[in-house]
């Protein structure tokens, strides 16, 4: 990698931020008590940018996707600001918030089977979205845009009559129906086999470059992320531990957690005899640690780690760690 510091964030490169999250915290008091399941999240997405949120299961990345889409369940208590095009979404009127859902932000969900209405035909489900403001295409045109042939038959079909790949395409068509500025894709390919996965990702990417929406891509798959996104935010236990350009972060991780993720992934790629892994597992929210939440699994842990680390801002890279790897430390490690 060039190692040249761009000195600017990708968001600024791509034009103004369309989404800016400031000090966002989310709690589920009835389920987890006072613990923040999302803790002090700061993040921005530029117009047309592709940003990845990466982390293990249970790290809160899906909750973050729901928070961005204004779809948090009523049991959630959120604090902080989520600004869409400069306005705090949560202080808007109900009807304004509803117009952002779908028209401002579209969502592609993980499980297309349950995310489509089993009792309604694909056609009716698309039609009711196409009737809302902002939608220009007809349901049939939408299906063509996600490269589904036989549109007339698919429009008549119920979701269970389609294959997994077809369902995911329908879900993408639904998300794009109202020409949103931002698309949140929450692990859109985990339920699919690898070849279909590649097709769906390629489709999303093509649509993204043709239509110019920003993409918030939530995934645990570093390979996919490295291929398809420009910037990355690594999450651990509800906190963002490192952000930067995707290629730089993955090649030269500063946070020990990122480094662990990368080396686990690399050992797979390289066909090592033994799969490298991060010892232990993500704690349940009710037992999240004070201070650095990663410290019980970290090889570099010291006493100071029980104090919450500040976010270090280096050019093109933010991370929250008391003992980060040195800038070039990980280069050539493999």
């Amino acid at each position, binding site marked *: 990698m060039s190692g040249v510091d761009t000195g600017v964030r990708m968001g600024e490169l791509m034009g103004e931020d369309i989404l800016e999250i400031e000090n966002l915290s989310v709690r589920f008091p009835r389920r987890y008590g006072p613990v923040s399941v999302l803790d002090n999240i700061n993040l921005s997405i530029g117009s047309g940018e592709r940003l990845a949120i990466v982390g293990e299961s249970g790290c809160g990345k899906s909750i973050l996707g729901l928070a961005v889409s204004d779809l948090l369940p009523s049991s959630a208590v959120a604090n902080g600001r989520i600004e869409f095009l400069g306005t705090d979404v949560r202080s808007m009127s109900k009807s304004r918030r509803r117009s952002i*859902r*779908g028209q401002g932000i579209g969502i592609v969900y993980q499980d297309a089977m*349950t995310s489509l209405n089993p009792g309604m035909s694909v056609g009716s489900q698309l039609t009711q979205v196409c009737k809302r403001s902002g939608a220009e295409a007809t349901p049939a045109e939408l299906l063509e845009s996600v490269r589904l042939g036989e549109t007339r038959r698919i429009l008549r*079909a119920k979701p269970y009559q*389609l294959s997994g790949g077809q369902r995911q395409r329908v879900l993408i068509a639904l998300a794009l129906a109202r020409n949103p500025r931002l698309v949140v894709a929450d692990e859109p390919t985990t339920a699919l086999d690898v070849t279909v996965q590649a*097709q769906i990702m390629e489709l999303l990417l093509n649509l993204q470059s043709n239509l110019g929406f920003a993409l918030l891509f939530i995934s645990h798959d570093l390979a996919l992320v490295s291929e398809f996104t420009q910037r990355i935010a690594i999450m651990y236990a509800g906190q963002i531990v490192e952000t930067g350009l995707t290629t730089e972060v993955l090649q030269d991780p500063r946070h020990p957690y990122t480094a662990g993720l990368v080396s686990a992934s690399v050992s797979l790629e390289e066909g090592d005899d033994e799969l490298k892994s991060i010892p232990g597992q993500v704690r349940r929210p009710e037992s999240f640690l004070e201070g650095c939440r990663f410290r019980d699994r970290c090889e570099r842990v010291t006493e100071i780690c029980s104090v919450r680390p500040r976010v270090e801002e280096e050019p093109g890279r933010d991370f929250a760690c008391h003992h980060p790897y040195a800038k070039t430390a990980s280069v050539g490690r493999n």
Partner: protein
Amino acid sequence: MPLAKDYLPGTHHPVSDEAQDVRSAGRSQKTAVWLFIGRRLATTPIVLFGVILLVFLIVDLSPNDPARASLGLFASEEARARFAAENGLDDPVWARFWRFIVNLLHVDLGSSVVRPEPVAQLIGAALPVTLQLMLLATVISVVLSLALGVLAAQTDGRLVDRTIGGLAALFQAAPPFWVGLMFIQLFAVALGVLPSGGYVPIGDGVKYWFSSMIGPATVLALPFTAAMTRIVRASVADELAKDYVRTAKGAGIPWLTILMRNVLRNSLISPITVLGLYIGGLMSGAIVVESVFNLPGMGTLLVSGADQGDLGVVRGVAIVSAFVFVLVNLVVDVLYILLNPRAAEAVAE
């Protein structure tokens, strides 16, 4: 970079990942639905035959003697024998059953031993009253339970939900004869807005008909509404928690549209099943309510027939009621399959 390079953006993949043919799926579903309906229609006569046989045997085995009922307790043995011979009472069981079936096919339910009219005519007069009562009660129940059930599901756990749940429990437990008497006490005696009983045919004025029917229909509907409300509430609440509701919400569909057009239809499957079962229960509920409100329906006819040992009437009412019950269930089953075609496929397989 050592990370995966398996994904090659820019390569065009033809859309051929689709294993399942949509067309054949659609066709097989339609076939399955018709197959189900056909099978259901074919088995209905068998069920009806069983019902006829059962009713015939039960009445036949009962110790009531039609001759005594007709001629009186002190009739001579000679007169009794003549009556038996004239009506074929001493024929073997199979011969009488055969005659009964043949008569039934001619819509002849035999004659009442007490009243001058044939049984078919008595039922012809009573059945419409009961059907009106049941229909009105069903309409009231369906409308009320849908509204209350959806409202309760919407306000999950809050005061409105708990109030509806409490009232539902109360009315499900309250005996209909008591509710009926309280109803008359309140609306007929204390407020004087409704008659205390009796039946006015719809031909004599819709308004009078309605005020004669609304009381009994409401009382008949109450326990049914209570049960249905709880089922609708549970079913809608289940459905609201599903992912597709989030999808619709995330696409900016207004909440009312989500509720009415997306959720409600999917929530109706179990309430409709229960509806089918309860409509049969309405029939027996009608017997009590008709007595309380003094309506000349099937219930009143059955009770007086049983009191007077009028076996022809009892048998007629039982068979016609069973027919109504079987037909209603047929309609409900077909409705259920049309709402949920996957069930037809499951049955077909």
